[in-house]
């Protein structure tokens, strides 16, 4: 039986950038015990000799010519911005590396 602890879920929530209350973490951790058991069934038939399909169509080499097409206007580009300044998207301070 696979299970995810509250801390495991917290780590995943961090990776996925979702703040979660303690209550929510615990609830998800409980649900995952059931869900993971169900989905882990894929391992029963996924033997080494079976190829992986990442895509339903066997398409190859779909390209676009290197030709410039009109962009959005800056007003359109910024139309959904929660905040903007000097024709740029204004975002809160970015922590971390330069």
């Amino acid at each position, binding site marked *: 039986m696979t299970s995810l602890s509250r801390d495991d879920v917290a780590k995943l929530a961090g*990776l996925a*950038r979702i703040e979660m209350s303690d209550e929510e973490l615990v609830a998800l951790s409980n649900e995952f015990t059931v869900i993971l058991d169900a989905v882990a069934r894929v391992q029963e038939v996924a033997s080494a000799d079976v190829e992986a399909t*990442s*895509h339903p*169509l066997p*398409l*190859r*080499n*779909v*390209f*676009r*010519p*290197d*030709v*410039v*097409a009109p*962009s*959005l*206007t*800056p007003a359109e*580009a*910024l139309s*959904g911005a929660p905040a903007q*300044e*000097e*024709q*740029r*998207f*204004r*975002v*809160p*301070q*970015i922590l*971390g*590396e*330069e």
Partner: protein
Amino acid sequence: MTLTYDDVVAKYEPVLGLEVHVELNTHSKMFCSCSTIFGAEPNTQTCPVCLALPGALPTVNEKAIESTIKIGLALNCSIAPFSRFARKNYFYPDMPKNFQISQYDEPICVNGYVDVEIETDEGPQTFRIEVERVHMEEDTGKSLHVGGATGRIHGAEYSLLDYNRAGIPLVEIVTKIVPGTGKYAPEVARAYVAELRDILRSLGVSDVKMEQGSLRCDANVSLRLIGSDVLGTRSETKNVNSLRSVERAVRGEMIRHAELLNNGERVVQETRHFQEDTGLTRSGRSKEQAEDYRYFPEPDLVPVAPDAAWIETLRASLPERPSIHRKRLQEQWSVPDKEMSAMINADVLDVVEATVALGADPAKARGWWLGEISRISNEKDVAIKELGISAADVAEIVALVNAGELTDKLARQVVEGVIAGEGKPAEVIAARGIKVVNDDSELMAAIERACAAQPETAQKVRDGHVPAAGALIGAIMKETKGQADAARVRELLLGHLGQGSN
């Protein structure tokens, strides 16, 4: 106590790893049709795709794939018959999708090499740098940090994002680890990046301007005790933005690591940032806690599977390797090593070649580009190739001098005029009224006037004191506004004053 570089290499063996990111010079972005022109107004080159608006889908730029395959071929790589894009998942505001479309375990080019030659104590020596992979990905947007003291990210109150650069095609070239360079590690690193730059330029796939960031180098350095085969912990110095900095960064990191190790401290596996002013690196993000990028095949794109015919067409289009090309030119032109290096360092080899191709004598062509034109470039602080004078202009000027229609001095005026934007050489000549005075009777009249004006000097020359003729020649040249051929003036003057045999 600061270690000297000699101390470091006496005890430790450096192991290099170099990752070079190259922005391709396609017209449109990697996954959308927005323009890639550098320096446009913020957010004028964005669309639903490169802004990652909900519902938008990427499409692959064919030219970018071709350029990447060409790079792979030029670096002696195998081209994978099947390769895929993958999503590299991590959150960062300058990356609109919060994943980068890159390549993971199925890159398009693998297993190549580049040979570089450097000068060692024992003479020129060749080092082989093995290339692990060449893959395609996309660039991020640019952030402007507001608030804070220096415009840097730390202490900034907020940031402003411009996504014009988001989605510019990037090719990443990753070497295998490079052992065995010993004390020459910094020079080898520099020579590798320089050679790569020349190859990319010869392919015409990138502007390769390190200062504009179209070619960026990350240098991984670790040290191991000489004789040991245990690799040390590496640091990764990001975005080293000039050839000189590559050399300095590697040397600096070698010394920093050695000091830590000598003091019994641990080298931390981390990203470091090169400081152009001090030549030192500053600690960035620690990589102790490895990022989990959750790579998986990009479901919005289909695999790239170049067939042999396509690859062979691209291979046939490759230009001569720059190092071989240079050797051939040097032989053809009989240029001494020193002059050859001068041309390479001044970055004029290609224009000299173009000038020669238009009929100019190699020595003359070289003389103009390395001499007068370089001088003006320095004086104006404008790159030679941005001065506005072309190989065709120089070839034309050289031809006019050969035909006796310009003197060297007049030719310099023409060069100056072309650079000043007065037009093509013929236009400058016409507009400035430049012409060689080669009518002997006109010159004789001027000579007689000069001798009459300076009778004492003329007498000295008659008495056999030839160097005194200079003052007279100067006066004559001044009178003819420099348009006379100085040699002819001298010949006529000396003849006139009875010194014709000289």
